């Protein structure tokens, strides 16, 4: 009797769990709309009527996304986009739950580094036959398009772009006897300039390296390695990470910079919370940071005169940049693929590139649109936009674990390079082994 009672009590949760799983399994099995055969030609207007739903992660460029959606809604009052922000730490789970239950938005913005994972898991609509032949795609941000492509199939277009570049303080350049119109074009030159700026004293330092922030470092130190001919991440199982002399050369460069006192001591505990405020403090001569810092630095220190150059490598005039930002993609199960594609066409149109992106002094997502009237009036934005042409985005299914995690091998390698005397070959070998293990899982 007691056993029977216990079985009865246990049966309910089991039944509830089974029903939920069955529901999820049924939903996963549902077909997505056809993406190819009868697809109409894309326009920048509604394909059908009724509200479109869009999810976007919080913590990205909210201001830009709001403006883009407002511009679409103004042009298309019959199919306005209802935008919902999801906390970025919950985005992956929310999308996965949505896909499992069939409750997906019609389109969504996605942190571009996560795109390969979702493409690999076949959770996004393949848009190759709809958008692959668009002329705009040819000039769309290379970094975005790299991660929007999986096994030669296209899954999205850029929503907005963030790029890294070298910001330099012209006032400090002048005080140190340097030409404010000639930023460094190689890492040896950067070191030379940093020494002179640090020599000014009074708490002024030549350079900034965020010692406790994996993401800040891939954004600003990663390009130094790329510009020096190195490769960083393992794309997948069997792929070799940290390849090229540039890895060791850049690690040696950073170690020397720290040892020479060119980096503020406080940078060692920088976990990203105050990273965006460092350049605007006026006490850092040069620093790798992002386009978002133009406005921030001006607000923080209106009198400071500064310039922007590309992040250099070891050789003269070598340069690279990290292209970050978001993609617009269509989750499987979306009922409004045609409208989602039209929104993509709208985003890439000349009109939106100039009158929405550029007018708000945000980067255009097409490289052929950077020469516009708004950027011409704002040389700093024009300078930072050059990064779109030399920039790239890491491509791996395990970006967070290899690179972005505070516990990952990338940050561990950099910290050992910056703050220890460990043999750099050993440091690189350890990081390489850890990255390969992650990629092979």
């Amino acid at each position, binding site marked *: 009797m007691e056993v029977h009672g216990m079985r009865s009590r246990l049966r*309910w*949760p*089991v039944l*509830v*769990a089974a029903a939920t799983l069955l529901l999820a399994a049924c939903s*996963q099995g549902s077909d997505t709309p056809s993406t190819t055969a009868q697809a109409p030609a894309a326009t920048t207007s509604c394909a059908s009527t009724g509200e479109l739903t869009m999810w976007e992660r919080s913590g990205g460029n909210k201001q830009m996304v709001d403006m883009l959606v407002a511009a679409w809604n103004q042009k298309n009052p019959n199919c306005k986009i209802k935008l919902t922000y999801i906390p970025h*730490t*919950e985005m*992956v*789970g929310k*999308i*996965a*739950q949505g*896909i499992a239950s069939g409750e997906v938005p019609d389109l969504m913005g996605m942190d571009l580094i996560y795109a390969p*994972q*979702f493409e690999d*898991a076949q*959770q996004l609509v393949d848009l190759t036959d709809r958008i692959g032949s668009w002329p705009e795609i040819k000039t769309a941000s290379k970094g975005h398009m790299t991660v929007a492509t999986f096994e030669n199939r296209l899954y999205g277009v850029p929503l907005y772009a963030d790029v890294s570049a070298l910001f330099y303080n012209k006032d400090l350049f002048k005080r140190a006897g340097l030409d404010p119109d000639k930023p460094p074009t190689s890492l040896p030159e950067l070191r030379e300039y940093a020494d002179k700026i640090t020599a000014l004293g009074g708490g002024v330092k030549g350079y900034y390296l965020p*010692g*406790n*922030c994996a993401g800040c470092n891939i954004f600003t130190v990663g390009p130094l390695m790329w510009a020096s001919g190195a490769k960083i991440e393992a794309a997948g199982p069997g792929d070799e990470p940290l390849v090229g002399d540039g890895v060791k050369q850049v690690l040696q460069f950073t170690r020397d910079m720290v040892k020479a006192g060119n980096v*503020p*001591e*406080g940078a*060692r*505990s920088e*976990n*990203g*919370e*105050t990273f965006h*405020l*460092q350049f605007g*403090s006026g006490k850092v001569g040069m620093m790798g940071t992002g386009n978002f810092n133009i406005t921030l630095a001006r607000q923080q220190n209106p009198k400071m005169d500064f310039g922007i150059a590309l992040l250099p490598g070891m050789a003269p005039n070598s340069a690279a940049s990290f292209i970050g930002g978001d993609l617009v993609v269509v989750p499987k199960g979306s009922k409004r693929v045609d409208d989602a594609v039209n929104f993509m066409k709208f985003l890439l149109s000349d009109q939106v590139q100039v009158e929405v992106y550029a007018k708000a002094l945000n980067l255009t997502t097409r490289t052929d649109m950077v020469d516009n009237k708004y950027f011409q009036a704002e040389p700093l934005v024009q300078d930072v936009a050059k990064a779109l042409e030399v920039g790239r985005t890491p491509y791996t299914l*395990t970006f*967070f*674990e290899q690179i*972005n*995690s*505070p*516990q990952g091998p990338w940050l*561990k390698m950099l*910290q050992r390079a910056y703050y220890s005397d460990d043999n750099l070959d050993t440091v690189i070998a350890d990081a390489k082994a850890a990255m390969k293990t992650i990629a092979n899982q």
Partner: protein
Amino acid sequence: MFRGRRSRLVGMAYLAPAVIFVLVFTVYPLGHMVWMSFHNWSLITPPRWVGLGNYQRALADRQYWVSFLFTLKYTAMITPILIVGGYLLALLTVERSPLRRLTRTTVFIPVVIGLGVSSLLWYWLFSADFGPINKALMDLGIISKPVLWLGVDADLSNLAIIASVAWKVMGFGMILFVGAIQAIPTDITEASLVDGASFWQRVTRVILPLTLRSVLLVTLVSVIGSLLAFDQFYIMTAGQPQNETATSVFYIYLNSFPYLRLGYGAALSMILALTILAFTVVQLLLTRRSHA
């Protein structure tokens, strides 16, 4: 017989809302977590049965045990501070006077601030570049250059975080202790005064024994809260230096969400949950003994 059956049904009907609530919000999530812990599941791909594989992996996962031991160390350090500090504050503010009430309110205010917000605040206060703590210490001549409180030295980071959490949480224990002390019948305290007991004699021989249940309750709450520590470490050190200040929940979070290893994260959560259960059982046994 019919009446007995009917009254049983009525009883079950009364119980039903609570039972359904527990089933939906406790039993099902817990059961689902157990189910998840036996699978490899990234959320975006179908789950795959791995049996005890995740648990075997957890046993061999060095970083998890580093995090687990660090969490125990943090718990062992902060719990006495919260209990003793809270109790002392309660003794200081238990009397009913306007100044003491104001002090109680002031000490309690941080309790209502979110832990994430207070962690951000303390991150700024401790900042080597922008923080007033370093500046004040330098102006007073106590230090000659800014101290890197967070993310460089594990022990220093731990102490800095303990200071921030003590500021945030101590008022909670204080309020419970004040309530417990005020509940002691006045004839007992007056009798001890008539007998000529000093303040500390009254505290150690009258007040403390009569408030022991509250002390154990606050200890239980503090231990569970500390074993589940996440926000403060996530925000203030991000587990650094070299992952030495990564707590168990921080490691579980990383595995479950950014790494998309939900099954493994569930297995780690189960291990942590069982640990907390063990602590709770011990605490409850102690509470019963003190009550007896």
